[in-house]
């Protein structure tokens, strides 16, 4: 019977093109508004590293000012000082996989002289960064522990930077010059765009990852300044060395802790470290350490802005308004077809049969609304992209994936079916006798 119902649904839609178009438009506009916001929220709140998000933990300890809370009650500093990053890393040794890094920038001087020097965004980190965050390599590989230890001048390039410098070829073994220092290329990444940029959300979590990766030991030795957020609560004398020994926070640290036992042991390690520092006169506040997995860390940092949730709520309200209109239109359609309904009842259709017929017809309208909704969502996303054309990261927030396309159609069909319940019930309960006799 489904094929028969589909045929009747199509006939009915063709017989009432204006009314059907209005219903499709009402659902499509509602879905378009909803899906535009949902798409942005979906991209913003997606899991950027699904396979490992439960075992990667962001490390926070309270090294802040005893007289002023960091951002509010119970708020921990988001980053670590150089002293603590190196101290915890040393304490962790080979027992735990720990990565610490910071954002910087360099001026790159192309070797062939064909291009002018330009600024590249760099990340100073350790060799474990690549395996911990599963960065995909096109050429070469990460540097190793010895390179970190020995402060070797090595670099891993992003796919885009390799394209620009070497035309996308294999540059492993070649050298690049940044701020006058020569670095040997050891690897090139495949295009890698985690959204959000989970490993460092202290800056814009939707900006692109860095273009070049250097050993943090090299960066610190060469006094590469931080290009990310840097916060200090205690004055320090000038100079890079003093900065390294200050209470300024500018490092992000992650630990890979696959089991609950690992996490527990690492918490003990942190506690012991803080206790030790307290004996040295640091950490004036009460001990407060935290380990947050990837999704907790995204949530703590409100990677998905509250405004998006408010907008999403408003968009759903708008969808409800559209559905109320659809209910009215469907009722009008049903009332115009009481004679047809009565006739079918007389010819043997039960209430259930008619209900199914009208539900299928509503489903068809829902699919139409879904398709229109996808088109309107695409337009909405392009509108947002144009509105914020100056921000590179917006481009990555306004892309629809198949999940969202299917969700749009699914939501449209469910919405249409919900809207059809009352009119369909009315249709199934039309009293046939009164409609059949008089023309």
């Amino acid at each position, binding site marked *: 019977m489904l094929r028969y119902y589909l045929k009747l649904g199509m*006939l009915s839609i063709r017989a009432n093109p204006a009314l059907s178009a209005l219903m499709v438009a009402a659902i499509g506009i509602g879905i378009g508004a909803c899906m535009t916001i949902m798409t942005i929220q979906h991209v913003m709140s997606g899991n950027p590293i699904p396979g490992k998000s439960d075992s990667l933990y962001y490390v926070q300890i309270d090294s802040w000012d005893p007289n002023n809370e960091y951002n509010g009650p119970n708020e921990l500093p988001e980053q670590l000082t150089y002293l603590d990053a190196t101290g915890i890393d040393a304490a962790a040794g080979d027992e735990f996989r720990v990565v610490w890094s910071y954002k910087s920038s360099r001026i790159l001087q192309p070797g062939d002289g064909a291009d002018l020097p330009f600024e590249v965004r760099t990340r100073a980190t350790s060799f474990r960064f690549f395996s911990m965050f599963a960065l995909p390599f096109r050429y070469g590989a990460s540097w190793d522990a010895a390179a970190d230890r020995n402060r070797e001048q090595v670099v891993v390039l992003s796919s885009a930077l390799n394209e620009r410098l070497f035309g996308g070829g294999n540059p492993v073994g070649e050298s690049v010059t940044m701020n006058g220092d020569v670095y040997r290329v050891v690897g090139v990444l495949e295009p890698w765009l985690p959204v959000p940029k989970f490993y460092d959300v202290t800056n814009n979590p939707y900006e692109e990852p860095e273009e070049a990766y250097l050993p943090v030991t090299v960066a610190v030795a060469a006094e590469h300044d931080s290009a990310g957020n840097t916060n200090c609560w205690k004055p320090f004398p000038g100079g890079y060395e003093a900065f390294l020994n200050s209470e300024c926070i500018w490092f992000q640290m992650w630990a890979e802790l696959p089991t609950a036992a690992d996490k527990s042991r690492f918490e003990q390690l942190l506690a012991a470290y803080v206790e030790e520092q307290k004996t040295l006169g640091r950490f004036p506040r009460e001990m407060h350490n935290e380990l947050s997995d990837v999704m907790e860390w995204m949530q703590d940092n409100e990677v998905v802005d509250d405004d998006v949730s408010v907008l999403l709520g408003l968009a759903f309200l708008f969808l409800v308004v559209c559905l109320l209109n659809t209910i009215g239109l469907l009722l009008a359609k049903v009332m115009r077809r009481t004679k047809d309904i009565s006739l079918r009842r007389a010819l043997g259709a039960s209430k259930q049969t008619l209900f199914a017929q009208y539900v299928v017809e509503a489903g068809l309208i829902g699919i139409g609304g879904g398709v229109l909704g996808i088109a309107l969502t695409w337009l909405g996303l392009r509108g947002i992209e144009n509105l914020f054309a100056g921000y590179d990261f917006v481009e990555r927030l306004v892309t629809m994936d198949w999940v969202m396309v299917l969700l749009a159609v699914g939501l449209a069909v469910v919405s249409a079916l919900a809207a059809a319940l009352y009119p369909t019930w009315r249709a199934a309960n039309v009293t046939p006798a009164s409609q059949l006799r008089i023309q």
Partner: protein
Amino acid sequence: MLKMTKVSKIYRTDTVETHALREFSLEVQEGEFVSVTGPSGSGKTTFLNIAGLLEELTSGTYELDGRDISALSDRERSKVRNEKIGFIFQSFNLIPELNIFDNVDVPLRYRGFAAPDRRKRIENSLEMVGLASRMEHYPAQLSGGQQQRVAIARALAGEPRFLLADEPTGNLDTEMATNVLDLLDEINGNGTTIIMVTHELTLADRAKRNIFVRDGRVSDGPPEFRLAAAGGQG
């Protein structure tokens, strides 16, 4: 075969009660051709609607093929309606968006017949009413008489035991009306029980038995009716 005993039908609004049928009793045997006449508002259409399970009765009993239908669920009533009863309406009631083939197909779809069986039944019934060559036409492309014949084909396609006709010639001219009545005679001759509601005594005269309804009850009727009824029975 069809037996109504003291059937009452009351339509109620907040302020008004209308007794459409009052202790209406009637028995129709298999193979009969019964006409039901009476003045406007006498209850003849209400009787037909109850007989066709399109309305529920208020009190009394209604047995169809020995089965009390008053306790049936909507699904069971629909099944009985689909399998045992064919309807012919004054206004034909064809579905304008469907061609003739698909119009006749409607009750067969609800019956659940397989496609080849449906096609055979549709072709046979349209053949019987002389419209086999018009299967692809739409109702608007046919005359009134042809449309009513399509409606008859639709009513017959499922081979119902009962044919309920409500003023079947009311929208037709004399020649077309005669053709339709000839067709009903032929159908009745094949064993289908027919109950026809009409307000015209000359049409009622074509039936084998005439019933007169007044004020919701079976009544003797006026002298001209009794005369016609006597002729019909003779």
